[in-house]
């Protein structure tokens, strides 16, 4: 679309990678258990390219939200580097960090918890504008109204409180707030998961339209793989604090290399009775193990249908390496095998 060309070009366009996550760890110590910690993010390396939507999937508790909070610098890392537009944000603090945050916004999961109940919608959307001293008071108000119009809400609703809106409308308010300062990168942490199906479709369409219109880069986190496949260009699969596979959105479905990806994809029902009759899900044993004391070697080996245990799988940790298609990485000693 030609609109995309007119979009503001804020930074050096030459670097195709907007965000780089390098061997990042986040351990939450458990109080009173000297040394024990929840290894929520346990050595993640990722790249997000300018203008793409990277989908991040995995079962609940695998560390997706923690990674999102590390990337947006809402949490400090335990170790590792996060580089955004060439600058290492893991080292930033105070005003410099706040300046950086302007280019990087977040849309949250819970439309009921992510808006301050004691502030009007106008104040909520205007807050980032105030923080960054953008425009005059009058201009800010106009911008708030345009933002409301953009996300499909009545621009005269600025004096209302969040509790007067439905879930879908609140999520739109959250999106308007994220867009207020013209960010280049937006993290959506389960931004549609709490919404009813039809509302979910409204928000997904809106996110797609906005991406096209403003040339945004998304990190789109969800546990619903169908939604992720619909919205993302590339997909990363997480298991117990680690990325186990990344690939283009069609490659990952057509040629999954990691047994976990394959199981995850096969367990999703499809709204088509004929396909469903033929579908044979790979049922994983049990549930995701504790992140305090992850299994040795490949941490999927306790549930993996093709694990060689005892053997290499429980002894040696597989690295995230190229397998399968171009641009596809998987962390499995027997990648591609069934």
């Amino acid at each position, binding site marked *: 679309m030609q609109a995309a060309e007119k979009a503001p070009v804020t930074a050096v366009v030459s670097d195709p990678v907007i965000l780089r996550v390098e061997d990042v760890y986040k351990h939450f110590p458990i109080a009173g258990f000297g040394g024990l910690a929840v290894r929520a993010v346990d050595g993640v390396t990722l790249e997000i390219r300018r203008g793409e939507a990277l989908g991040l999937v995995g079962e609940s508790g695998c560390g997706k939200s923690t990674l999102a909070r590390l990337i947006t610098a809402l949490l400090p890392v335990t170790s590792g580097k996060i580089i955004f537009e060439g600058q290492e944000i893991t080292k930033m603090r105070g005003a410099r960090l706040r300046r950086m945050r302007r280019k990087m916004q977040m849309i949250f999961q819970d439309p009921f918890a992510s808006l*301050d*109940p004691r502030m009007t919608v106008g104040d909520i959307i205007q*807050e980032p504008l105030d*923080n960054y001293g953008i425009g005059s008071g009058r201009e800010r108000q106009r911008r708030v109204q345009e933002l409301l119009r953009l996300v499909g809400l009545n621009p005269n609703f600025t004096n209302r409180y969040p509790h007067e809106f439905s879930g879908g409308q609140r999520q739109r308010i959250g999106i308007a707030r994220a867009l207020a300062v013209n960010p280049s990168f937006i993290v959506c942490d389960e931004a549609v998961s709490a919404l009813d199906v039809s509302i979910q479709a409204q928000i997904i369409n809106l996110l797609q339209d906005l991406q096209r219109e403003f040339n945004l880069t998304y990190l789109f986190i969800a546990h619903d793989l169908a939604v992720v496949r619909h919205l993302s260009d590339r997909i990363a699969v997480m298991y117990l604090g680690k990325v186990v596979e990344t690939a283009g959105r069609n490659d990952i479905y057509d040629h999954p290399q990691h047994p976990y990806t394959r199981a995850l994809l096969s367990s999703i029902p499809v709204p088509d009775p004929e396909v469903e009759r033929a579908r044979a899900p790979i049922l994983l044993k049990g549930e995701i193990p504790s992140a305090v004391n992850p299994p040795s070697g490949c941490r999927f080996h306790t549930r993996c249908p093709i694990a060689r245990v005892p053997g290499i799988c429980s002894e040696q940790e597989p690295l995230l390496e190229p397998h399968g298609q171009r641009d596809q990485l998987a962390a499995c000693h027997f990648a591609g095998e069934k």
Partner: protein
Amino acid sequence: MALAQPALEQAVDWEVAEQQIGLWQDAWHRFRGNRLAVLGAVVIVFLILVAFLSPLLVHLGIIVSPTTQQVENIEVGPGQAGHLFGTDELGRDTLSRLMFGSRISLSVGILVQGIILPIGLAIGLAAGYFGGRIDNLLMRFTDIWYAFPDLIFVLVLVSVFGPNLLSIFGAIALVGWVGLARLVRGQVLAIKEKEYIEAARSSGSPPLKLILKHLLPNALGPIIVTVVFGIPSAIFLEAVLSFLGVGIQPPTPTWGQMVFDGYEAIYANPSSVVFPALSIGFTLLAFSFVGDGLRDALDPRMKR
């Protein structure tokens, strides 16, 4: 999740007539709907008026001065010799002493909260917001403070600094701030984890703004309630102090002291105990009702 709401987001028009009610307005509606709370508020307003106006009434000669001793009318019963509530063992008018007593009792209640509020807020906010070592330090400090029995603490302070108004206010405030600080800290800890705080942080709000614009307003409900409930307990504590003989010294009347003085003659002249005791009781009830009403009114989950 929400059940179906009235269709706010209609197909054709977005302008939907949903009544526009702010949170505080909403709270006010709920408060007004609570009869006991309104009654309590009326009683409190009445008491405050009495406290302010009693010197004027003496000046106008409508009531006698609380210190005037009428030797000819010692321990008369209610309604006798022009004393509506009777007199005490020195022949002083009980009604007048009650009215003047409300000045001390109410100001103990209210001013003490005025001292507690900034201390409790500052310590609670700092501990809760910054967490880590600051929190540990402040909370150990409050724990030690808390471990001390309130009454002994007050007694010690008052006996050291003498039973004057200031030391009594100060002593009561010093035992009171701990509870508030803990409450504020708890609130802040809970609210800090809310997504809207994270959202404000990622919108670039600096710490001071986070505290003042987001944390404080959202913690305010329980804080107001605690402060309101703190008023009767301060009144009560002052009464206990007077009862133990270390409160405000005579002849300045306070309700607690009146109970104490009258207690010795409880059979001979019950009215000089009953009226101040009732005053304390009703005031406590009135503040409690208001506190309850505020708690419900400030909880947005409570529907009208």
